[in-house]
């Protein structure tokens, strides 16, 4: 496994896009979080907004960058034919995929932690100006607070799971454009379908099985009782999606000709 890890790390490290993408992940997440926090204001009479969720809003856009980082690590190899060299040098295919997954998850965890911490900090700075003050019953996002810590740590895990989900799908689909289409369609479309159907039971079902809606439940710190799933169960749904995608990708990598 060490050999594989080293090889995959070298590949990812030396790709031109990796550095800028990680930078984009951090800046975009923080920028969108700060914009969302700046755009929403809470009147003194109160509001239903969840300040922690608002401070972490950028994760919803940052996940797209994570998908862009993850998909080419395998589909790029199919595109250039590098995959045949990779598999010739390291014939244990499952280990190759595991190494890719480990490297990707590690990188995303590091960049995601920076992005999430900076987002929370931005929220702390921006939100009080918009009426989210302790005087009005809003606690500022603080990592000393249990639910906020869970939301922040969960968001980092969320990003890492999105990376694994993308890797799994890309391994199964192989073509980069198609893979990124499938990943983003899965992430962004399912929640939208939930708003289209009028039946509340269907709405809740779609919400439960949608990786983005359910996964982002980890960010909720208010009105938890109204959510169809608890935060950790929601993140579990995303983990199940990621596991299923990696399993499908791994099987296709083992069974199909490269």
């Amino acid at each position: 496994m060490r050999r594989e890890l080293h090889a995959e790390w070298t590949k990812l490290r030396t790709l031109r896009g990796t550095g800028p993408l990680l930078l984009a992940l951090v800046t975009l997440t923080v920028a969108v979080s700060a914009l969302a926090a700046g755009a929403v204001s809470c009147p003194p009479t109160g509001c239903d907004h969840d300040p922690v969720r608002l401070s972490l809003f950028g994760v919803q856009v940052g996940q797209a960058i994570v998908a862009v980082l993850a998909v080419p690590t395998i589909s790029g190899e199919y595109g250039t034919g590098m995959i045949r060299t990779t598999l010739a040098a390291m014939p244990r295919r499952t280990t190759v995929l595991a190494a890719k997954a480990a490297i990707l998850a590690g990188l995303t965890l590091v960049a995601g932690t920076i992005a999430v911490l900076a987002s929370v900090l931005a929220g702390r700075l921006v939100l009080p100006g918009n009426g989210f003050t302790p005087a009005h019953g809003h606690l500022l996002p603080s990592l000393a607070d249990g639910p906020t810590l869970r939301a922040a740590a969960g968001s980092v895990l969320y990003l890492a799971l999105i990376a694994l989900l993308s890797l799994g799908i890309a391994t199964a689909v192989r073509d980069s454009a198609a893979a990124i289409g499938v990943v983003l369609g899965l992430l962004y479309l399912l929640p939208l379908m939930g708003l289209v159907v009028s039946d509340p039971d269907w709405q809740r079902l779609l919400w439960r099985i949608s990786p983005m809606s359910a996964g982002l439940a980890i960010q909720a710190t208010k009105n938890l009782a109204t959510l169809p799933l608890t935060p950790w169960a929601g993140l579990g749904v995303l983990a199940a999606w990621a596991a299923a995608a990696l399993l499908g990708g791994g099987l296709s990598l083992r069974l199909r000709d490269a």
Partner: protein
Amino acid sequence: MTTATGTPYRSALPPGRDRFAHLLRSEWTKFRTVRGWVITTTIAALVVALLGLLFASGSRSTCGIGPIEVACPTPPVGPDGEAVDDTFYFVHRSLTGDGDITVRLTSMTGIITYPPPDHDEIVPGLVPWAKAGVIVKDGTREGSAYAALMATARHGVRMQHNFTHDTAGRPGVVSPASPRWLRLTRSGDTLTGYESADGTRWTKVGTARLAGLPATVQVGLFVASPGDLTVKQGSLGGSIEQVRFTQATAVFDHLSLRGATSPGEWSRQGVGRTGDTDWERYHRPAGLEESGGTFTVTGSGDMAPSVDGHQIERLLTGALAGLIVVIVVAVMFVTAEYRRGLIRTTLLAGPRRGRMPVAKAVVIAAVVFVAGLAAATVTVVFGRRILVANGNHVLPMSWLTEVRVIAGTAALFAFTAVFALALGALFRRGVAAVITAMVTIVVPFILATASVLPDGAAQWLLRLTPAAGFAIQQTMPQYAHVLRHYVPAAGYYPLAPWAGLAVLGGYAALALGLAVFRVRRRDA
């Protein structure tokens, strides 16, 4: 002495014709012969149709009187063919031929039931568009033509006619200290409204022409009070709108009529309402109290276009899913050539490089336009039938609007495909192109319609990004004189339909221009 001069070799074959049509044909052949692309484009169309029909068959409405299920009543339709809400309290008598009605309005009061923040009490107050005044109407049927001159709670004096038209008069609030004199004059099918502060100096507010107004009409006093609207954040994203019952009471005096009016008592009628709220039953029913020339009229409701029913563009929500597939196909149509090296053959065969992206754009635009047109037509035609069969009311609209929505959805597909293809030619990398197209078209639309973004930010997203193109699907116009939650999530876009599509078209043209420039400059 002779000099031998060599003649350079020239081929006897006629020079190949450098025609754009050939390029188009070759690009069409490429598209047609890659099975995956044809299948994927078909999938894009199928996704749109299936999601639309699924949505239609999942929507069901039933109405009942007690336990008995009955057919839902069809909402009334206004003179211009749109669905309308026509409910108010009407004190009237008939007028034949020309004439006028003059009255002084001295006060407007009312109640609002269970407003925020606590929703626990009935408070005195008026909603901004509570209205009272004089009206001339073609009978008492809901949806019939009318012109009315009125004072409103917050928007001053207004002249309104036929539900969709509104002219502003003098602003200000009616009170016993500052009453309003209102006069409505009928002359043929022209109605003119005048207002005055003292009953002697009159100013004209506006005129309305009601084509085909019969000789005998109903003339009189009216009071209406639209529901109180509040919007709450939904726990699963989106927002929840609540409309609560309100009631307004207006006091009129100095009522005078001119013209051939019917003699006797005033007729009184709650148009379009049964008055069955607890407030009306136990506290104050809608109606008229008359004493010594003072008329106190109480009523609820509104005379306005209605959105109570299904908008056909909701059937086309699956277009977003279709667009994702279209983006992927359009990007692959160009990046696959770079990946396989076919691009070098393509450019060798057609050396005027700038034409390559244009020819590809024309082909992909035509293909997805046809696919989108077929999908949207099937979805709208059959989806509407399913909706109606399930007892739903589909909001009526002109065939022109319907054609615009269907063809506009196809154009949305075509422009998106051109945009995505141009990005593919610019970046040469599938992932970068797909993600850029998605982040600029799909993601802004989702953030604007299905997230916690405040309405202002959502509207800016749909003005500035290529996602503005979705405006072409809007069927219900936004009316300044009707208070509603006009947000993208409810199907109201910040730009006019064609303006929105033009924004997307502009982005597509810009991207294509950049792609041409780049393909000409850069080595393949």
